[in-house]
């Protein structure tokens, strides 16, 4: 695990470029900062200033090298690199509330933006007029959309929202793609159709994050009532829910067909396993705290503490985990969704950590090694 502290401001969101030499982050303000890796250090190479409100989502398309950002100013911009400078193109989303999340589709010909206006804006490029057009998915969303994920077939879109539900929509745009074949989630997919809807009844909290597995057959989401749920589209539609004993998780990611990594307010990534029967179990926390050695505090330290903190006790207020505050986003660093070797977390403490697994031949997590 290697931790890099960018600044003291929270990192609201981040996105990697294709070869992981550059990272785009937003330090909780109106700007996006792009850092370039040089040796072991990260050097700031670009600042993208166009938004008028806090940036809430960034996504970097790996093949076409375009960045899409969305913000609280109800706008989204698509940035392209021209002569070493990132040039923005405004996308009219036609929403009257802040955008909350943005994601490129797998083929990068469209992107989806979730918003507080209780709708999802799916945008595609119309080359005749040379601009981005948006289409809305409104029904039956009743509250803010917090998170989105595309299915590998480039058509289905999963959305988690504050009305306690996780839904699978069709975002089929006939102008840019062919009709999709049938999937376990459904076969008739006109734009905006709800193919599946989960959650709500009785308990439930806001759905913070959703993730499709690499095959697209499984869908996982985490919600604010400290639960993780996975549903397998090929095995009927009863979701398997695990009530954790931790604080709510904020971000979830499939790292293989059977394993899910999630992280949240406990400042520590956790691994869950989803077996072939579809039931979910907790495996372990991935941040193994070093055994703290309690040692006698020296006289010099005692006086230093008296000066700095007006106390003589050796009270360490730092958390045991690597991250000192909630983790808001988990992303794949090395590998892909079917076999991830390293993943990256960023959080409210302004730090970015890269975690490394070694997977055994049974695809069971054996140990987490330090980088």
């Amino acid at each position: 695990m290697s931790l890099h502290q960018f600044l003291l401001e929270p990192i609201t969101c981040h996105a990697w470029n294709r070869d992981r030499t550059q990272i785009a982050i937003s330090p909780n303000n109106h700007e996006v900062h792009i850092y370039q890796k040089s040796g072991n250090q990260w050097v700031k190479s670009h600042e993208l200033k166009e938004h008028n409100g806090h940036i809430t989502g960034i996504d970097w398309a790996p093949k076409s090298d375009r960045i899409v950002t969305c913000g609280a100013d109800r706008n989204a911009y698509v940035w392209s690199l021209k002569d070493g400078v990132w040039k923005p193109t405004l996308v009219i989303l036609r929403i009257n509330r802040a955008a909350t999340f943005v994601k490129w589709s797998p083929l990068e010909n469209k992107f989806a933006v979730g918003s507080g206006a209780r709708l999802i804006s799916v945008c595609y490029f119309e080359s005749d007029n040379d601009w981005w057009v948006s289409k809305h998915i409104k029904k039956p969303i009743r509250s803010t959309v917090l998170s989105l994920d595309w299915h590998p077939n480039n058509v289905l879109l999963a959305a988690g929202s504050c009305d306690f539900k996780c839904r699978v929509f069709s975002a089929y745009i006939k102008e840019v793609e062919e009709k999709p074949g049938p999937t376990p989630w459904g076969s008739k997919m006109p734009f905006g159709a709800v193919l599946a809807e989960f959650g709500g009844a009785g308990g439930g909290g806001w759905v913070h994050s959703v993730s499709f597995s690499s095959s697209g057959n499984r869908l996982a989401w985490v919600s604010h009532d400290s639960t993780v749920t996975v549903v397998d589209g090929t095995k009927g539609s009863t979701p398997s829910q695990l009530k954790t004993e931790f604080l709510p998780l904020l971000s979830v990611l499939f790292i293989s067909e059977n394993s899910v990594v999630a992280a949240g307010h406990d400042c520590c990534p956790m691994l869950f396993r989803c077996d072939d029967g579809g039931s979910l179990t907790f495996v372990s926390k991935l941040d193994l705290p070093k055994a703290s050695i309690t040692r006698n505090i020296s006289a010099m330290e005692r006086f230093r503490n008296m000066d700095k903190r007006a106390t003589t006790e050796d009270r360490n207020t730092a958390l045991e985990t690597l991250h000192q505050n909630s983790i808001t986003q988990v992303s794949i660093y090395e590998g892909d969704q079917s076999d991830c070797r390293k993943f990256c977390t960023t959080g409210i403490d302004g730090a970015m950590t890269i975690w490394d697994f070694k997977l055994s031949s049974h695809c069971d997590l054996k140990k987490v090694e330090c980088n």
Partner: protein
Amino acid sequence: MSKNTDSNQFRKVDVDEYDENKFVDDEDNGESQVGNLMEALQAVLKNPPINTKNQNVKDRAEALVLKVLSAFKSSDIEKAVQSLDKNGVDLLMKYIYKGFEKPSENSSATLLLWHEKALSAGGVGSIVRVLTARKTV
């Protein structure tokens, strides 16, 4: 002729009810034994009145749960919590917090004991579920 012109209501009164020495059969007779207390806990946590809007039903259920929880000895609380499954621990937490809302003389002390054991079994997640539950017990 001798028609009774006064009220006949006195015939409807059950005199025995007002007898001070009347034997009241205690319903909770068997519960003072430990084994039965565990069963009482399971029984009282079954079918919680979550879906009803009737406040009386909820109040009565809560009072019953409180009675059972207070009947436990402090040393038995941990075993009782272990015997519950995950959903049972969540439900117990809901009742504990409901009990905190209206503290009576000794209730808070016993509830705090139960809270400590339930917390070690269910973790902070069970408390988060009490806070986010949309249908209360």
